[in-house]
């Protein structure tokens, strides 16, 4: 072996990093070559000097400065920073931001009250119009009116129950945290309720008589399609033959968007002789969101399982997890189906209409309610409705003005302040 090659290995030789063979080669060579021995000595010498190099002491105050920087970067200090910001908030600022916050809260609450208020107004107004249109037993309508106000408390009451339902698995700390946060903050609670869409399923059952079944049915189907609804089923039969004239009986199921439910009911009442009417509003909000939360929980569970599945090593583990995954998936799917069913039923109201063709009974009716009379009544009704809704609007605005006007002023002032502040900053 040449000296050059040996020289290159000397460094590793010193550190004992050579293989046994190479080590022997180097040792053999060293015994015979003085030049390389000298080289080795020089290397050893250099390394021992390097080892003996004195370490410099850090300059004075090094530790102090480091300590300060560490404190600045400590996550604990962030909270103390926040605290000091709070302290620096002077009274004026507290007053300003506090008043803005209070104003916002007041506006929010006022808006809520108004919502509920106008809902009641609307209900009453409808009640009256029903009473006017058909002199049916009022007891039936009263049933639906008081139903509306309890809707809100119901959803509110649903919250804690739901919280219990959501927290059923101790593992989901984040969800629990979220819930405790929500329940701590009443404004948050209010917003979450506000965010929730109310799920109300409306169903109506109407029995009625008509003189001209076919014409009515044609008109009805046109009306329904104008309301973007549809005839779900139509079961028509001849139930009697009288003087060569067939009398028809039909059992019809109509689906219309929830918004136009009452419009259709009103239309029916105006066009046919209603014998029996039953309207039902079922609030399924609570049920719906309970199911919704269950789905969310299960989805988290599913995700955990998937993570576990990736970590699984044995086939047995994989099978177990897969089984569990399938069970969770099935449950999610089942819940989702019932959720979409509720969605569908809440979005589209159902009216079951039983209609019978009659010959004489309504003849008198026809003479009494001439086209002129009916259109006059309708006109008065409409005008009354317009006047009433306008009145409601004015009442709402005027009654909430003591809150609304200062709130708006404060909001604008705050907005300008903030904009000024930003401009200054830039």
């Amino acid at each position: 072996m040449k000296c050059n090659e040996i020289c290159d290995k000397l460094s590793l030789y010193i550190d004992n990093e050579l293989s046994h063979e190479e080590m022997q080669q180097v040792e053999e060579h060293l015994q015979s070559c003085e030049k390389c021995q000298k080289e080795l000595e020089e290397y050893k010498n250099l390394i021992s000097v390097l080892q003996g190099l004195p370490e410099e002491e850090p300059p004075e105050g090094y530790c102090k400065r480091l300590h300060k920087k560490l404190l600045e970067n400590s996550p604990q200090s962030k909270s103390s920073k926040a605290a000091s910001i709070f302290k620096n908030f002077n009274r004026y600022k507290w007053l300003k931001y506090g008043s803005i916050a209070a104003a916002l809260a007041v506006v929010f609450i006022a808006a809520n009250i108004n919502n509920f208020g106008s809902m009641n107004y609307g209900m009453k107004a409808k009640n009256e119009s029903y009473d006017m249109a058909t002199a049916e037993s009022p007891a039936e309508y009263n049933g639906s009116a008081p139903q509306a106000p309890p809707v809100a408390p119901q959803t509110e009451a649903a919250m804690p129950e739901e919280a219990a339902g959501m927290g059923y698995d101790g593992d989901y700390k984040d969800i629990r945290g979220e819930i405790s946060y929500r329940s701590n903050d009443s404004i948050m609670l209010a917003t979450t309720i506000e965010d929730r869409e109310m799920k109300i399923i409306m169903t109506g059952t109407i029995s009625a008589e008509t003189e001209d079944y076919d014409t009515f049915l044609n008109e009805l189907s046109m009306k329904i399609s104008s309301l973007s609804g549809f005839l779900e089923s139509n079961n028509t039969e001849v139930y009697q033959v009288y003087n060569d004239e067939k009398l028809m009986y039909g059992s019809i199921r109509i689906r219309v968007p929830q918004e136009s439910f009452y419009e259709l009911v009103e239309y029916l009442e105006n066009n046919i002789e209603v014998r029996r009417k039953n309207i039902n509003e079922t609030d399924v909000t609570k049920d719906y969101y309970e199911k919704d939360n269950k789905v969310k929980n299960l989805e988290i569970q599913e995700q955990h399982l998937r993570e576990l599945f990736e970590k699984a090593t044995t086939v047995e583990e994989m099978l177990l997890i897969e089984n569990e995954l399938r069970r969770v998936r099935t449950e999610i799917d089942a819940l989702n189906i019932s959720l979409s069913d509720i969605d569908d039923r809440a979005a589209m109201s159902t009216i079951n209409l039983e209609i019978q063709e009659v010959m004489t009974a309504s003849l008198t009716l026809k003479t009494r309610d001439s086209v002129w009379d009916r259109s006059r009544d309708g006109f008065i009704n409409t005008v009354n409705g317009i006047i009433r809704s306008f009145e409601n609007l004015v009442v709402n605005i005027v009654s909430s003005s003591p809150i609304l006007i200062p709130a708006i002023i404060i909001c604008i002032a705050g907005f300008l302040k903030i904009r000024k502040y930003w401009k200054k900053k830039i």
Partner: protein
Amino acid sequence: MLTSKYITERGGTMNNNERWLIEESRKGNVDAFEELIKDYKRSAYNIALRVMRNVEDAEDASQEALIKIFKNISSFNMDSTFKVWMYRIVVNTCIDFKRRKSINAVSIDETIDLGSGREIQREISDESNNPDALIERNYSTQLVNDAINMLEDDFKTIIILRDIKGFTYDEISEILACNLGTVKSRLSRGRKRLKELLEKEMKANS
């Protein structure tokens, strides 16, 4: 005799006290962290000093590295020893710091141009005649320091880690994130280069 120093305490088992201090540091306990780096901060400073070659930058770079360690201690996964992990950050931060700095760095050998042809020489305090700095060996400490300063960064860091700090080859490969072969060849070449530089200087001095 030489090798005995290199057998470090890398037994793999981290002592419990260190583990506890790491846990506390993760929670943001500054005192625990300071206790943890008590023995290392001087080393960190010295590595920075070797790389940066001036006291102010060495302090800034080493403190930046230590703060980086404190901030990222939660990402330390106990795979390697804390010492190895932390030196890795120190070395990387120092080299990075130097790279950033070198954009507007000036060499001490350069003359300062004042324009209109007037030039002045930088005045650098010369400590080479300080008797305390001389150690009676074949190479004087000052000479070795100068030679190290002249080394390329790659060679410099590996010689600092191996010969000055006494890390094993395995640890160095972890700290520098390169394989064992690279460590071996780079160290061999680094030592050779250092020796050449020293010989050149000795010749120049005599």
